[in-house]
């Protein structure tokens, strides 16, 4: 039953975007098309969340959820056992919202990095943010700071911020950001942090090792319900800033010189976009660990389906990234229940083959 649910969602995903936007992929983007696609993908996100709420080790009937949904609609009292209420609203819902936020952030940051660096291989981690963040998290876990509230995410976020400062410091010359230098700086910083991570892993105890491995593979079980509004606000501000520059991003993808000739203040736009994308990546990584593949493949999938215009690509990637990570996290929760898998395992396991399939069929 559960498997059918998940499967049907996956099928729904693909077919719905294709059919509603059929024959539009080669048309110019208009506001009405952006709204249409966003509403559609928003609906997908809503349905995915609903199904995900029903799925888990303890069975909660579809009837209960429907009851809540309709009583909410008609304003009547909810009559549910406390147990079910707690599981649905204090355990599953926060986690779904959380997965959605992280997925949206990674996908949006992936779009921005691929565009700014004009590199289809770019992802949110390409500038080393994941490495710095991981070092912070591992130090927190080893030192025991992870036990206090905000310990692990706090140190992890600090690590990410330090990396951002470091990488931009290296790449900045004559007050200009050179994309290639930035890319190289990111690669080098990442390599350095990998060594630090390996060192820390090799000297840490067995009990810590399990937490570290989970963190490194991405783990959404760390969420605390009260943190969600803050994370949501942070992401919302980030998404808005990025969307303001969506058209400029189109022009920068052509080439930085073309963008200048078409009226874009390229240096300023690049700085704002790099910084915002880096910050939302840092926020996502510090609360969820390194979840791979979302930030790389979601932008490509959306580009193949909907075209390259960032005014459509950004909102669609954001919404689809959210849905994708919610599905992946649901699978991570139930695949080996009651044990949980790191969600990064799922995203890579289904992401990579699907991506290869798309690549063979259409080419990036």
């Amino acid at each position, binding site marked *: 039953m559960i498997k059918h649910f998940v499967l049907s969602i996956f099928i729904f995903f693909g077919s719905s975007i294709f059919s509603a936007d059929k024959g539009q992929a080669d048309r110019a983007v208009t506001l009405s098309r952006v709204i249409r696609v966003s509403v559609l993908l928003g609906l997908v996100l809503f349905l995915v969340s609903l199904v995900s709420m029903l799925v888990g080790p303890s069975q909660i009937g579809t009837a209960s959820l429907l009851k809540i949904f309709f009583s909410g609609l008609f304003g009547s009292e909810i009559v549910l056992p406390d147990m079910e209420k707690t599981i649905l609203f204090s355990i599953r819902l926060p986690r779904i919202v959380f997965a959605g936020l992280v997925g949206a952030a990674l996908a949006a940051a992936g779009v921005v990095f691929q565009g700014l660096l004009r590199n*289809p291989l770019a992802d949110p981690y390409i500038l080393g943010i994941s490495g710095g963040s991981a070092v912070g998290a591992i130090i927190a876990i080893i030192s025991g700071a992870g036990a206090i509230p905000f310990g692990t995410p706090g140190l992890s976020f600090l690590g990410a911020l330090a990396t951002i400062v470091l990488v931009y410091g290296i790449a900045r010359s004559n007050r200009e950001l050179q994309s290639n230098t930035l890319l190289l700086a990111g690669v080098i910083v990442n390599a350095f942090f990998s060594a630090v991570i390996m060192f820390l892993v090799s000297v840490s105890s067995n009990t810590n090792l399990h937490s570290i491995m989970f963190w490194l593979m991405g783990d959404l079980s760390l969420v605390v319900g009260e943190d969600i509004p803050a994370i949501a606000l942070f992401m919302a501000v980030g998404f808005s800033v990025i969307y303001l520059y969506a058209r400029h991003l189109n022009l920068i993808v052509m080439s930085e010189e073309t963008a200048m000739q078409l009226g874009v203040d390229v240096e300023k736009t690049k700085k704002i976009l790099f910084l915002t994308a880096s910050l939302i990546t840092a926020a996502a990584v510090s609360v969820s660990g390194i979840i791979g593949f979302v930030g790389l493949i979601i932008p490509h999938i959306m580009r193949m389906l909907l075209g390259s215009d960032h005014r459509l690509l950004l909102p669609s990637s954001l919404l689809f990234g959210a849905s994708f990570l919610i599905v992946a996290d649901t699978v991570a929760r139930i695949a080996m229940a009651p044990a949980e898998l790191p969600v990064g395992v799922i995203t890579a396991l289904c992401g990579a083959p699907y991506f290869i399939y798309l690549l063979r069929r259409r080419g990036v």
Partner: protein
Amino acid sequence: MTIIKLSDIGFKYSEDWVLRHVSFEMKKGEFLGIIGPNGSGKTTLLKTIDGIFIPQEGEIRIDGVPGRQLSRMDLARRIAVVPQDTQLIFPFTVEEVVLMGRAPHLGKLRFEGEKDFRIVEQAMKATDTYSLRRRGINALSGGERQSVLIARALAQEPRIMLLDEPTALLDIRHQVAFFDLIKTLNRDRSLTVIAVTHDINLASDYCDRIVLLKSGQIYAQGAPREVIVEKNINEVYGTNVLVDQNPVTGKPRVTLLSSHPSDGGSRSEAGAAPQL
């Protein structure tokens, strides 16, 4: 009416001057050709006019306004650039690329309206690219892609158009078609055009005036008849050419003289060179 005025421009990337003491004026609707050997500063000159490079010496005035006082948006509404070629990593369609030309006329969040789509349609029709509008830009031939870039420049509705060796990658049919189109726009819309080119004959046939650059300085400027003479070309390019008259246009025509003529034909001077 003077639309572009350069007074004593000097520009350097680091140590050495790439441009020095460059001064000229252009009237609205003029068609200017910039010629000169590799590394003589042609493209750099174009980029200083477009505000991408800021000259360390001298001043550029566009419409009487110093270039420094114009924002990128101000410049983009006045000047459009057609580059040599464009390579795209992500697949935009032809229509999307031409629509980008409207960017200087739109606010950050405003989508293109009916008027913009109409302008873009006209630009595509004027450049024979309308039938390609749904195609990916990377799926086009070099000549088609170049036409799309002109369409984008037209959609910008500029008063000045800068061409940076626009026909370098085109075959002869497309070269002529390209310059014919630009000339038509130049006449009908009194578009001011500056073209950087290696093809002296095309410059001679189409331009009202020629600027000949040598090592970052203006060696000669004036009508094609005055600038394109054997002495100037031989001296600036350091090679032997024959300049006569194009029988159709009456403009100067340059013939390159090889030092290894294959048949030892009628060119007495070069014929003396040893044959392979």
